[in-house]
């Protein structure tokens, strides 16, 4: 759904043009364009047409009480793509709000399946299905806690599939927030030892969760003319432009390639709209997360405390409030009070620091098995943060000049690098 919306929005694409020289020929030099359009088919790594896979589900907590309003979230859902012979198994963790079957996750599944891996795809701990069925606290965003939850899910998933497949070694990867979680999961595995991952690759991680979500929140707030109360006008304008694009193109299609065609036909304007689109997409994910967490933890942020919602009750008004609640609002008004109540002596700054990869810097420095891929123009990082990665990971960091946030993940050079990293 989010992909569809982003695509729909991306139709208004007003962009800066491409064609960089030099060895790295990813087509978009503009970080915002890259983030919205991603990688058009002609630039993608070759992918298998069909994947041998199963949709699976787990009960993580036997005694979990699932509220009526989430009746359809009865189990944690995930997928297994499998080889018919002994092969390495890779776990892939989705980015913020991402489902195990989001379009990016399907691409990763194809890439690794095509390269001979078994692939277990997991939703982000910030995805509603994970919050309802597999989060201990139901208050997602605490990377240490979320990684513990992920580890539990990975162990259960492995129990569920181990009789069907033959596995040689274990690998781990994730993109965006999932990349940062992969590092914490890897660290946890050093103690628990269930998998002994041979290699772990982080793709476009945030360094500090707090600082990255602040950037994403701002993209929305600073790019809707007149503020969120005028969102309706912004939307109407989008729809008008959608009509123009339709007249220009003569057809509609919701693929990234369609966006690329538009990009080629439409002259460049500015970043404001693209930034707003990225902000909207993030806000839609985070509002789903906030509402779900609020209901599950009975925090009384949006829904009155102790109210039980029925399966057919209108949620429209709550949706309005949730979409007006930024990730930072959630952080300050639900997340922080919750973790403060568990540890009254802790300061907010200490909590924020514990959610950063900096908190495990010594581990990241010495863990030869962990690699990192990011971009110089990564939208969720500042220049200093990119430098931090460069300094901590040294030769284990691959930093591309362009690509924005996850825009170049499936570009052929990137995929080649990623597969080489795991195979060597």
């Amino acid at each position, binding site marked *: 759904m989010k992909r569809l919306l982003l695509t729909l929005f991306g139709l208004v694409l007003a962009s800066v043009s491409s064609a960089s020289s030099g060895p790295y020929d990813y087509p978009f030099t503009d970080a915002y364009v890259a983030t919205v359009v991603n990688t058009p088919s002609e630039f993608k790594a070759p992918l298998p047409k069909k994947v041998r896979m199963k949709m699976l589900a787990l009960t993580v907590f036997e005694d979990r009480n699932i509220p009526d309003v989430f009746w*359809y979230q009865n189990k944690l859902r995930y997928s297994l793509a499998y080889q018919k012979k002994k092969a390495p198994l890779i776990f892939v963790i989705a980015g913020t709000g991402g489902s195990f*079957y989001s379009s990016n996750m399907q691409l990763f599944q194809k890439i690794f399946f095509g390269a001979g891996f078994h692939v277990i795809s997991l939703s982000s701990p910030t995805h*509603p299905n994970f919050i309802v069925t597999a989060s201990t606290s139901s208050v997602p965003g605490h990377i240490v806690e979320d990684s513990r939850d992920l580890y539990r899910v990975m162990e259960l998933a492995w129990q569920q599939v181990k009789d069907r497949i033959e596995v040689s070694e274990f690998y781990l990867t994730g993109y965006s927030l999932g990349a940062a979680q992969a590092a914490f999961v890897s660290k946890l595995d050093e103690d628990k030892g269930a998998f002994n991952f041979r290699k772990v690759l982080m793709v476009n991680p945030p360094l500090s969760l707090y600082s990255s979500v602040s950037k994403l929140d701002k993209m929305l707030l600073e790019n809707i003319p007149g503020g969120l109360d005028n969102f309706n006008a912004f939307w109407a304008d989008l729809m008008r432009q959608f*009509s123009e694009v339709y007249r220009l193109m003569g057809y509609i299609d919701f693929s990234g390639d369609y966006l690329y065609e538009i990009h080629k036909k439409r002259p460049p304007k500015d970043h404001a709209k693209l930034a707003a689109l990225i902000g909207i997409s993030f806000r839609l994910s985070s509002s*789903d997360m906030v509402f779900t967490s609020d209901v599950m933890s009975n925090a009384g942020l949006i829904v009155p405390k*102790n109210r039980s919602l029925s399966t057919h009750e209108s949620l429209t008004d709550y949706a309005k409030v949730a979409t007006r609640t930024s990730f930072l609002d959630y952080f300050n008004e639900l997340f922080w009070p919750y973790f403060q109540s568990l540890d009254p002596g802790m300061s907010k700054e200490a909590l924020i620091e514990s959610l950063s990869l900096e908190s495990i810097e010594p581990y990241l420095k010495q863990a030869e098995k962990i690699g990192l891929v990011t971009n110089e123009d990564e939208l969720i990082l500042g220049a200093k943060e990119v430098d931090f990665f460069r300094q901590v990971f040294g030769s284990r960091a691959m930093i591309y000049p362009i690509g924005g946030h996850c825009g170049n993940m499936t570009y052929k050079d990137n995929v080649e690098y990623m597969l080489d990293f795991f195979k060597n």
Partner: protein
Amino acid sequence: MKNCLHELTVASVFVLFLVALMAHGCASAPVQRQGEIPAKRPVSEIVKPDVQYVIDAFDPWEGMNRRIYKFNALFDKYLFLPVVSAYEWITPDFVQTGVSNFFNNLHEIKPLSNALLQFKMAKFEMTLSRIVINTTIGMGGLLDVATLEIPRQDEDFGQTLGFYGLGPGPYLVIPVLGPSTLRDTGGLVLDAAAYDAMIDEIMDELDMDSNDDEDRLKAGLTVLDGIDTRHQQGFRYYATGSPFEYDLIRRLYLEAREFQVAH
């Protein structure tokens, strides 16, 4: 030659209207219950009466609609999708494609007639060419060779009604079929009747031995058509994971229809 399945469809739509009318006003207002503590970000403070929200829609039968939405999700999960999966498992891919092309070709009667009703001659001619090409070179519609040259056009009676100025009316979730509006549901019934009349014509041309054979063939076609329609449709209930999926789908549907009517 009457088609019993068609009568069934019409009858169920009428029942639906009755249910809809009865459910009118059922969308319950929130009531303060015992033991409740007001939210920190209450609806009453955050939602402003003078602001228009994109997510707002004319949905006076929301309570009933949400129930039907849930029913559809369950119907999909326990009946529709298992049947579709079995069909996909049994038949080879090229057969599935052939079946889809065949029904898509038959259903071109919808854009054809409705383009004509709106005097959209370019769309009419494109659709006519598609039918001629696919029925002849495409071997009775089993191959879709036309799409390479001429994209499929999209018109239906709901759009025709919109073209002549009829608003969408209340949002309506139809059992099994999903999102619609009062206007589009009416359009659906008329398009179905036109399709049915066309199938009757074709059947008469086939000149079968008995009426029973004809009825059986038609029933079989209808069932296969239904399975193929779901097979072609990628939507899965609650796959978005969003607790606001009903609201999102409603907005997308209404937006898409407004767009289609305008083009």
